[in-house]
């Protein structure tokens, strides 16, 4: 089955394309790009007039909860959620049950994804065995089994010595290290950002320095080891500053932020809304603005959702007891398009943040519409208005602070390996 995407505004930073053209896909591969292409026989045609056609979006930080926590999400539902949100690929974090710290778990994910997933699922293995921060996981095995990166996401690697060895060892294997950077002694029993809102609510605060101090450590370790490091979900002005400075002196550091960090502030916690509880926590307006500036100036390389599904029983409780995290796959694109509307980034930059750069950081052959590339394509309707309704989310979980929000922009089509997996 062939697919012809006609008349769309193609934006592909990997080849410097930013114009109206057609794309012909055959056998799951990009066959041809050009003006006025004609469809061969047995070709489905998509009219993309007025729409934006980009390399398939990649969310490099999601939790699919499979194996072990399928009551929150599983590979099938999580990938449906991804497809609905315009993502053709996701990288799933290893804090499943059991932890993805060995090739048996990785193989389970790869095999289940092959059978049930609508999008590409790239597993992320653990840095340390059981993500306990005590000894290195078998990164070579993990990579061979299909992991594209390692991370102890959800927890920091507390020991600086172990993090150093992880960076060194991973450099030899050739696998990306993604850090969850947080100084746990500074976090203490904190449940939200430390600041005036926490003071008003009488909730224990997590100070920004808990993130900054840890990010600074990762940067210096990476510099010392001459190894790359990718820092997950940055949320503070300080993290932006540290990473900006590090990049300027040539440290191989990349980082991501999530839509909630450039959209919301800790004021969203007022009323003790547990859907505004995540880790790192929502920060101050000054931090949010710094994150936006860092997206604009290239300090931040990727937008990733940290899609974290939870069951209502884990969220409909007192604030301190509620689990951290929100679902994000289906709201990421419109929230990110807002950055374009606000003039902070242009569409090319946004495609880099959501597709090209994540592909590069993970080392996966995606994020491009070059001839011969796997035909992962997202077709965006930037003007489509819709309301976020819990029941309509494809994810098994509905824990989103954006329920009820009016959104602008949606994935009109999501195409994975030449197959349309979402059409709206």
């Amino acid at each position: 089955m062939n697919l012809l995407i006609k008349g769309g505004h193609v934006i592909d930073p990997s080849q410097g394309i930013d114009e109206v053209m057609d794309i012909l896909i055959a056998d799951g591969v990009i066959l041809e790009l050009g003006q006025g292409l004609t469809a061969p026989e047995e070709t489905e045609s998509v009219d993309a007039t007025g729409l934006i056609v980009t390399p398939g979006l990649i969310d490099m930080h999601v939790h699919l909860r499979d194996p072990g926590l399928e009551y929150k999400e599983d590979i099938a539902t999580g990938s449906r959620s991804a497809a609905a949100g315009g993502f053709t690929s996701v990288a799933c974090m290893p804090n499943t049950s059991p932890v993805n710290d060995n090739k048996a778990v990785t193989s389970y994910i790869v095999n289940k994804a092959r059978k049930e997933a609508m999008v590409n699922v790239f597993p992320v293995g653990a840095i340390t065995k059981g993500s306990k921060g005590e000894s290195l996981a078998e990164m070579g095995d993990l990579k061979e089994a299909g992991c594209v990166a390692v991370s102890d996401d959800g927890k920091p690697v507390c020991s600086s010595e172990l993090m150093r060895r992880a960076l060194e060892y991973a450099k030899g294997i050739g696998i990306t290290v993604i850090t969850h950077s947080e100084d746990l002694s500074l976090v203490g029993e904190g449940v939200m950002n430390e600041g005036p809102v926490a003071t008003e609510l009488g909730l224990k605060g997590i100070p920004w320095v808990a993130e900054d101090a840890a990010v600074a450590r990762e940067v210096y370790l990476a510099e010392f080891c001459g190894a790359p490091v990718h820092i997950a979900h940055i949320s503070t002005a300080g993290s932006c500053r540290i990473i900006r400075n590090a990049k300027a002196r040539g440290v191989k550091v990349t980082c991501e932020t999530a839509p909630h960090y450039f959209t919301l502030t800790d004021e969203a916690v007022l009323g003790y809304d547990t859907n505004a509880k995540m880790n790192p926590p929502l920060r101050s307006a000054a931090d949010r603005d710094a994150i936006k500036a860092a997206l604009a100036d290239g300090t931040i390389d990727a937008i990733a959702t940290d899609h974290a599904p939870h069951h209502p029983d884990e969220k409909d409780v007192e604030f301190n007891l509620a689990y951290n995290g929100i679902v994000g796959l289906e709201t990421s694109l419109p929230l990110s398009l807002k950055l374009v509307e606000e003039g902070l980034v242009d569409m090319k930059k946004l495609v880099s943040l959501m597709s090209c750069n994540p592909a590069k950081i993970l080392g996966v052959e995606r994020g491009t519409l070059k001839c011969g590339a796997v035909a992962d394509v997202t077709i965006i309707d930037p003007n489509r208005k819709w309301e976020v309704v819990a029941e309509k989310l494809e994810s098994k979980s509905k824990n989103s602070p954006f329920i009820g929000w009016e959104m602008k922009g949606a994935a009109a089509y999501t195409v994975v390996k030449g197959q349309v997996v979402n059409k709206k």
Partner: protein
Amino acid sequence: MGFRHKDIIGLKDLTKEEIELLLNTADSLNEINSRDIKKVPTLRGKTVVNLFYEASTRTRTSFEIAAKRLSADTINISASTSSVTKGETLLDTAQNVLAMKPDIIVMRHAISGAHEFLAKRVSCSVINAGDGAHEHPSQGLLDMLTMRQKFGKLEGLKVAIVGDITHSRVARSDIYGLTTMGAKIFVAGPPTMMPIGIERLGNVTVCKDMREAVHKADVVMMLRIQLERQGKTLLPSMREYSRYYGLNPDMLALAKKDAMVMHPGPINRGVELASSVADCDQSYILKQVENGVAIRMAMLYHVCGGEPSEG
């Protein structure tokens, strides 16, 4: 005017008129507490459940006496003897209690926001008897009642609050209530116990030195210091705390001559409060406890839809 709230979660939510209404009602109900037969039929047939997830003697007893003097039926549930130890959630416990049709749940909970969480989900009234480090409205009201009895008004008073502001729900309720009523609040304490942005909660001045807060104050409110709860990283020792943030006669002499000494209790003699100060003529600590019963009677009465009382 009547009282329009189903619940009393915090003083942040109450207007000046509402606070005055509660204080006036408490003043008139106070008379019942000095009668021979301390009981009126006002809340006969109403059921009050005291749901206490945190240890409390003063507040629980005070609420129970208040309810009984208004002829309500009271039941006490404390976390250690209930299904909570079997892992029942707050919402499940509350719904089970609710199935027995209480009119008011008086709750204390260690988690800030537990009352707001509960009040949104149950049909009966919820009165906050203290949630985490958030609010303790009955304490704030009884503090204001005690001050008003002495000075005749609250407007323009200088109130010093000294101690662990970060973890104090009393400080927050006092700040909200006193600000609404036109008083000025000066807070002092170790920087490890002074939360970011406390000055934004009301008419609050943060003082570096306790002497600055106490200087010419009408009221000196001392907070209980809890080394065991707050962890050892916040203070080097009780001894040093007492030297810088304890109220002794010399420190008290900086305040106005007739300044009131107050404390939400229980007091640590010789730590935040010198014994001689705790027991001096300027100490209103027991008066606060006495007023607590009347304030809680007023709160129970008004959430049940009472009109301004004649006593």
